[in-house]
């Protein structure tokens, strides 16, 4: 009895995926390519071989975490689009501990991971505190924090974390602070398990604990939350901290969990846009931690499979991106629609 309703969002999402695929197919066809061949290449590129599949998962890893940042915000009634900046700071924090603080094996990996998460959470606290006690709108403050984070992180990367003699990237993570690579042919590391684990922990927290219940209640009906004795400031801060931990882990995962660089580029080129992409992933995943994992794999598949589509069918890379955009947009519609409806009905 329980399953049909619980599965409805999944069915809706799958239906819109199909719609998006059809719309994208029309676009590819309009540019003179065979949609069938293009999609075949996409699927083969993403899942064709074991290595392709692992690479898809490597792409998915940071996205499921930045999606979590946005999703936790939405569940608390917030529009936290600060994952991008929080993720930068997470990458910086992880780089510092991984590259410059020698520690024993095991401990070092944990310390670097935790440092990244805490750095992300600390950065998230700024808009969180501003919102909770000063009422500053989180959209404005997180956008501003994203820009500050961008320049702050580049500055830190160039001036304090740079590898001597190399301007383009920071010191690499010491071998003791690197997640084990799962397969030599792909860039997937064991950080995937940490990401999935963290998403599941957040899921259990939101749906299984009193604090999680209060957070979701504040998002669902702020006045009822007041009636239930929930302090809104606490919920705001908690949701920003949770989101910041996730974003920080996402940033860390690209430094200590992604070969071949094992470091942060001075331009932040190996992490930029992962935070923003997470918003789309969260929408497709219906702002649910588990949905976010699945949606992130889908996004990973589009990124990984798109390469083969370009190479094999000759679809221009711009068109590949447009196609991905259409599919993502179609998939995000049900959740966007639901969020809009909830806002309007208030």
């Amino acid at each position, binding site marked *: 009895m329980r399953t049909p309703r619980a599965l409805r969002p999944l069915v809706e999402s799958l239906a819109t995926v199909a719609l998006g695929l059809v719309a994208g197919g029309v676009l590819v066809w309009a540019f003179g390519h065979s949609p069938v061949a293009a999609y075949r290449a996409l699927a083969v590129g993403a899942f064709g071989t074991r290595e392709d599949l692992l690479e898809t998962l490597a792409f998915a890893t940071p996205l499921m975490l930045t999606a979590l940042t946005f999703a936790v915000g939405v569940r608390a009634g917030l529009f936290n689009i600060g994952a991008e900046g929080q993720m930068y700071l997470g990458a910086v924090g992880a780089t510092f501990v991984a590259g410059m603080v020698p520690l024993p094996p095991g401990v070092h990996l944990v310390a670097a991971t935790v440092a990244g998460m805490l750095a992300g959470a600390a950065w998230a606290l700024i808009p969180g505190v501003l919102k909770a006690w000063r009422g500053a709108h989180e959209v404005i403050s997180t956008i501003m924090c994203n820009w500050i984070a961008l320049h702050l992180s580049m500055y830190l990367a160039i001036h304090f974390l740079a590898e001597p003699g190399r301007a383009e990237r920071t010191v690499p993570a010491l071998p003791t602070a690197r997640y084990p690579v799962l397969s030599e042919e792909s860039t997937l590391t064991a950080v995937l398990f940490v990401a999935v684990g963290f998403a599941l922990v957040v899921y259990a927290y939101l749906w299984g604990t009193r604090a999680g219940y209060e957070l979701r209640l504040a998002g669902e009906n702020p006045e009822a939350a*007041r009636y239930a004795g929930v302090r809104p400031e606490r919920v705001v801060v908690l949701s920003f901290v949770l989101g910041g931990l996730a974003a920080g882990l996402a940033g860390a995962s690209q430094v200590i969990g992604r070969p071949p660089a094992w470091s942060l580029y001075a331009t932040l080129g190996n992490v930029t846009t992962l935070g923003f992409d997470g918003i789309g992933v969260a929408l497709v995943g219906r702002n649910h931690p588990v949905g976010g994992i699945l949606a992130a794999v889908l996004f990973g598949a589009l990124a990984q499979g798109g390469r083969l589509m370009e190479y094999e069918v000759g679809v221009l890379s711009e068109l590949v991106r447009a196609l991905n955009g259409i599919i993502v947009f179609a998939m995000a519609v049900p959740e966007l629609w639901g969020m809009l409806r909830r806002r309007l009905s208030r």
Partner: protein
Amino acid sequence: MGEGTPRVQMRGIHKVYPDGTAALRGVDFHLYPGEVVALLGENGAGKTTLMKVLSGLLRPTRGDVLVDGRPVHFHNPVDALRRGIGMVHQVFTLVPPFTALQNVLLGQEGAGLLRPLPEEQARARVQQLLEETGLEVPLDVPVESLPVGVQQRVEICKTLYRGTSVLILDEPTSALAPVEVDDFFRFLRRLRDRGTSIVLITHKLREVLEVTDRVVVLRQGLVAGELPTASATPERLAELMVGALSTLRVARAPRSPGQPVLAVRGLRVRDDQGRLAVQDLSFEVREGEVFGVAGVEGNGQSELVQALTGLRRPEAGEIWLAGERVPSLDPLSLYRRGLAHVPEDKARFGLALGFDLVENSILGRQREPQFVGWFGRLRGPVILRYTQELVRRFRVVAPDLTTPVRSLSGGNQQRLLVGREISKEPRLVVAMHPTRGLDVASTVYIRELLVQMRDAGKAVLLVSADLDEVLELSDRIAVMYGGRFLGQGPVEEFRRETVGLLMGGVVPEGVHADAARPPSPR
């Protein structure tokens, strides 16, 4: 007056809302030029609905509207304005940062996309209008910095500027301080003398008698009576307004109350606009009694209940619950001391509509030790069993427990809510409009539950705009008007007509009113 063709005629107006509520059940209404008519009635009598039909905001389900003897079919308020009919609502439609003049001109600019506003020509015309009507409005101040009473004048000016000769005012004096009311009435008379017809929607008897020519009383969607103001008395109007006792009876055995559970001393509470909504209120609710607060909505009841339940900070005064003074803005500590709260708007405060029955069954109880395990983990199986018990005991009809409560009927939502609150084993139940909008079966059931709580020795504070409900369930009652209790005492001491008078702000001879007391020194 009273001769020739009426300016407006409404015949056999029915209005059934999409949710099935019959707000109007065949109402006739007419209005002559230069006439001030009061539309009097309790909450939900259909006053506002009738005037929304006339002003084009609602379309009647059945019935005819005639203007100057010709049938009309308004599709929107603009259609009505074209025929000279304009309504000023309780909630204003002003743009806060715009000046009064800009607000008056809004939608009437006569400017193209790139042409500048002809503000200066319009200014002269607005000024002339103000002089003719004696309305005082500072034209160049942003309306957000004007007091509410002046904002209302801007709103009226805006309506008149559009050439309105039938002006409908919905509870206009509720936004005004007592001194402003006299000015306002002078303005209305002047407007009438210019030939404008005015409909005054109100529940205040004094206003009716002071400023109107004719009174139409609505009750439950029907015209209960119509008479010239000259021949009206407060008693007659109150009687028409409240009608005869309804037939939904709940058995209530006599019972002698015990110790006070709730004690309120000198409570003052401000509303969202900063006006004093509750003024130096003192009362007690004792074990084993229902204390009923009657009154027309908007007389401070919401603010009173919110202050008592920890949702609004009182400005002054003390609230004692079970012998302890309670802190403000801390609902949880009140719950721990034995408060159960059935809020006025269940969808707004008492339930999270997107959550399922299980989640809603612990709303406000989510911190009780029985539901929380180690590390703040919610004890799922315990909560599930408790929800099943609630649903069974309070006969909540739902497809299953994981249904969002949004898809439950209002009656079932309220059963779940009341059940949750009652199962707390409280000392004090505060219930506001507990049966509003519910089906008959749920209404009777919830009233019975409240009486059962009383019989079990709990203190029950019932605040309701439904006079029948208050009179039937209460052992003692008070009538709230303008933030004070007019009259407070055992229910047997109040005749129905007396309560009707008090609800309209008229204190009959021989009734002790709190308001008559000199303010306590502080």
